[in-house]
């Protein structure tokens, strides 16, 4: 039956706009995945939102009622404001640094000759796939108190007079996070550069533009959407990062993800932990969707 239907399709139908068909085949193909996601994503998320409204006590455990106790605590206790403020600050600085360093690097990479470009692309994007725990461990070794390699290097270069504290500080967390997130930024800018017509730079040159003018007036405006979408990815991943703040930041320097972990697995106050997690999710969705809409509106005229 499917064979008969397919042969009657017009030969020139574009690949992306398939013919509507009476057949139920697509339903059966999508249904398993749809059920999987309903069962194991939508239901748990709904339960978590509900959980954030439940009550909890040291001895009574979780009480399935709907009250605003946890939300009230987060809204009034300055501890949470400070913690979310720190999360936001770390994510913003990380995003800024990855953009400032990653975008030029992607540009340099794109100007290299074929073989070197492939090798360095592998070296720079490869860490993305290497375990975050292993990479953060590397930073912990480099920072390692006043005796760490980073401090030894900076001291011997005469850049600093006394060892800087990296471990258990926001500076250390940001440095390690920049490393973890950098491939996302390079990748995003790289993709934007790939869409650039190489003749465009030649055209600008033939019209009398020097290298800096070409960079500022021709390349940067076209790559900007790539930088911004990379920034959105880096921001949302940094704001919800767990392993790096947990290992480099230690037990005292809490961010949203490590606090939720503590509430769930140490304090066992699940409803409060759920509220922290839901707030993180809601905040990120708002910021990401808002930023995406802004970027798309700004560049709709040019790139659609």
């Amino acid at each position, binding site marked *: 039956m499917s064979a008969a239907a397919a042969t009657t399709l017009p030969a020139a139908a574009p690949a992306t706009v398939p013919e509507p068909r009476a057949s139920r085949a697509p339903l059966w193909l999508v249904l398993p995945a749809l059920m999987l996601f309903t069962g194991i*994503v939508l239901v748990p998320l709904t339960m978590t939102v509900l959980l954030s409204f439940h009550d909890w006590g040291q001895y009574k455990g979780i009480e399935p009622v709907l009250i605003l106790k946890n939300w009230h605590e987060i809204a009034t206790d300055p501890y949470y404001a400070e913690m979310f403020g720190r999360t936001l600050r770390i994510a913003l600085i990380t995003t800024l640094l990855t953009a400032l360093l990653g975008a030029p690097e992607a540009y340099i990479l794109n100007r290299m000759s074929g073989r070197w470009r492939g090798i360095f692309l592998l070296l720079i994007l490869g860490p993305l796939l290497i375990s975050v725990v292993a990479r953060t461990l590397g930073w912990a070794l480099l920072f390692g108190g006043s005796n760490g390699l980073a401090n030894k290097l900076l001291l011997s270069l005469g850049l600093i007079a006394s060892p800087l504290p990296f471990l258990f500080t926001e500076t250390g967390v940001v440095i390690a996070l920049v490393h973890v997130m950098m491939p996302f930024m390079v990748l995003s800018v790289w993709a934007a550069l790939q869409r650039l017509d190489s003749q465009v730079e030649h055209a600008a040159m033939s019209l009398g533009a020097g290298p800096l003018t070409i960079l500022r007036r021709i390349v940067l405006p076209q790559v900007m959407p790539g930088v911004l979408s990379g920034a959105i990815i880096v921001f949302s*991943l940094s704001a919800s990062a767990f392993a790096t703040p947990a290992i480099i930041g230690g037990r005292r320097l809490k961010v949203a993800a490590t606090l939720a972990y503590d509430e769930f697995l140490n304090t066992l106050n699940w409803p409060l932990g759920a509220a922290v997690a839901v707030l993180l999710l809601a905040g990120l969705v708002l910021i990401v969707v808002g930023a995406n809409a802004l970027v798309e509106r700004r560049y709709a005229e040019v790139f659609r």
Partner: protein
Amino acid sequence: MSRNGPLALAFHGLFVIFMLAPIVVVCLVAFTPEGFLSLPTNGFSLRWFRAIADYPEFVHAFWVSLGLGALSSFIALLFAVPAALALTRYAVPGRGALQALFLSPLMIPHVVLGVAFLRFFTAIGFGGTFLALLAAHIVVVFPFAFRLTLAAAAGLDPALERAAVSLGAGGFTLFRRVTLPLILPGVVSGWALAFIQSFDDLTMTVFLAAPGTETLPVRMFLYIQDNIDPLVTSVSACVIAITLVFLVVLDRLYGLDRVLAGKGSH
């Protein structure tokens, strides 16, 4: 014309050193002959690699991770391939919404997923089981398998399938003899990428793992929380080596930048 100046190359050099430094340091420290954290200054030693064998928790966690990664990424494909084919071939109602749903684990922070899974699986009585871990991993790696399969299926010339149909192939034969071989690079890359995601995941897994179902990253994380010694660096070096193998395979098979394009949320 398109050459980098000395300033650009100096920047590039520092950048590459920054990207590689922590990874290289971990691998070097793993070879120290000393009993404490140090760079191997007088000779390399494999003592800390041998020491892994004396710490059964790591060995067990490794097998859990390996099994979990292989199984979850394979099962994710069983769901993802039909869904991707359906979404590229038919005018499925609500296609945009479905696609967004299937890619949503990329956008939802893993810590939130971890919390939600812990709540859900505890509530239905599966807390701390391997099955719960497996189900969670299938969902979390699904987008990676799905996205690469989707790209491969969308890039397929529909005339090829029509040609096969006109020659009398249909149903599963069509899939097995024509469609699957053509999208195979995408599917295999999707599997490999999904495997690595599962193998490396800490944030979500740390909420679900119980003693006995701890994965390698979870075991390493908990170990580091207590103390950092050369043992955990040698374990990390092994993890890095395994990842490198996958990395090279992925690069050869599909091109690393294509595999990773849009790996993050959007």
